[in-house]
């Protein structure tokens, strides 16, 4: 494709790094959320949550496909055969599913960022990414509707529900700030109008999530004094990622040359 050939090396590297970050986040969270399939808190929610996990995996596959088009290996190979320190996902997505409040809060915080991110990427100067981003819009809108409704209702829920959801917010928040860990390519991504950059995304994200959390009667964590969980974008991960990757590639690795 012509447009890809015109990319200079530096720009290509920056785009690849961005795509790996986006796709790896979705791949890992999609895997995590899929663990609830058949074990959810009520049948109807089990179904909804599984659909959203499928959406995540589907979106990551589309992004890996785009990577393939600009010179990387095919989606299955890059998704399932890299070394752990080659993954660029943030720490938030790596954690085990925990109780449902944790999984829901993570889903809320993460998908709010995804909705804003892909909305911004809809006008990326890198056309193929802009095109894909627009396709994600409907799915992400449902995800955020689902997440906002749940967070709001559990925040106002009876029993220990508000306390549980508050505890998950406190636990997830530093991890969620790690979504916005700047890459080494922010300048070129912003300069070339490929992506507005993680800093701007974080600001927009805060503007979006804080009113929802307030509405849900939750105490907003003291952002200035929180240390964001950084490292994921540079390949430094939590202890949870390696066992997860081993697990999700267990069958594939029986014979990587075989067609499964």
């Amino acid at each position, binding site marked *: 494709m012509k447009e890809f050939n015109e990319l200079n090396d530096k720009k290509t590297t920056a785009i690849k790094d961005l795509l790996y970050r986006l796709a790896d986040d979705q791949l890992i969270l999609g895997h995590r959320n899929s*663990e609830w399939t058949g*074990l959810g808190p*009520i*049948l*109807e*929610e089990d*179904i*909804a949550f*599984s*659909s959203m996990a499928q959406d995540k995996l589907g979106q990551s596959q589309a992004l890996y496909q785009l990577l393939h088009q600009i010179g990387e290996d095919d989606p299955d190979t890059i998704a399932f055969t890299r070394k752990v320190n080659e993954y660029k996902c943030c720490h938030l997505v790596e954690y*085990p599913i925990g109780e449902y409040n944790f999984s829901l809060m993570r889903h809320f915080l993460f998908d709010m960022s995804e909705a804003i991110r892909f909305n911004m990427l809809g006008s990326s100067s890198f056309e193929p990414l802009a095109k894909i981003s627009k396709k994600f819009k409907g799915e992400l809108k*449902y995800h955020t*509707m*689902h997440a906002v*409704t*749940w967070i709001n*209702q559990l925040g106002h829920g009876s029993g220990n529900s508000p306390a549980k959801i508050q505890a998950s917010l406190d636990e997830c928040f530093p991890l969620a700030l790690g979504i916005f860990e700047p890459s080494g390519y922010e300048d070129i991504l912003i300069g070339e109008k490929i992506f507005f950059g993680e800093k701007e995304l974080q600001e927009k994200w805060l503007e979006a999530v804080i009113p929802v959390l307030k509405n849900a009667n939750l105490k907003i964590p003291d952002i200035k004094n929180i240390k964001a969980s950084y490292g994921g974008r540079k390949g430094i991960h939590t202890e949870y990622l390696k066992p997860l990757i081993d*697990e999700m590639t267990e069958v594939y690795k029986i014979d990587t040359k075989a067609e499964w």
Partner: protein
Amino acid sequence: MSIKSLDPRITRENLPEEPDSKPLENIHHWQTYEVFHQTKKGDRHIHVGSLHAPNQEMAVILAKEQYSRRDKCVNLWVVKTADIFSSGYENEDIFETTPEKTYREAGGYKVMDKINKFKKERKQQSN
């Protein structure tokens, strides 16, 4: 000892090897809602099933995946089952009306015979 399952998800749950056989203590019933979907604008909404939900906002969120994850859909209605009032099958016979109500059917009006007869007579008169 906890159950060591072939399913890593289950192993992580640390389930007791001898499961409890007591019934669950707290049983909570959410309400039921009836779900109607519309496959495209211009079509009618059609009843597709029911679901459990705590309120209408949640009912829509949950209905979306259970009732339209495959089929095309542009809109969903949810109605509390309790709010639906039915004519009742015990009254099914009220719909059995006598068949001779041709006066309210298009087929009950056949005037061509008259017109043809009239035209024929006019023609004869003018001859």
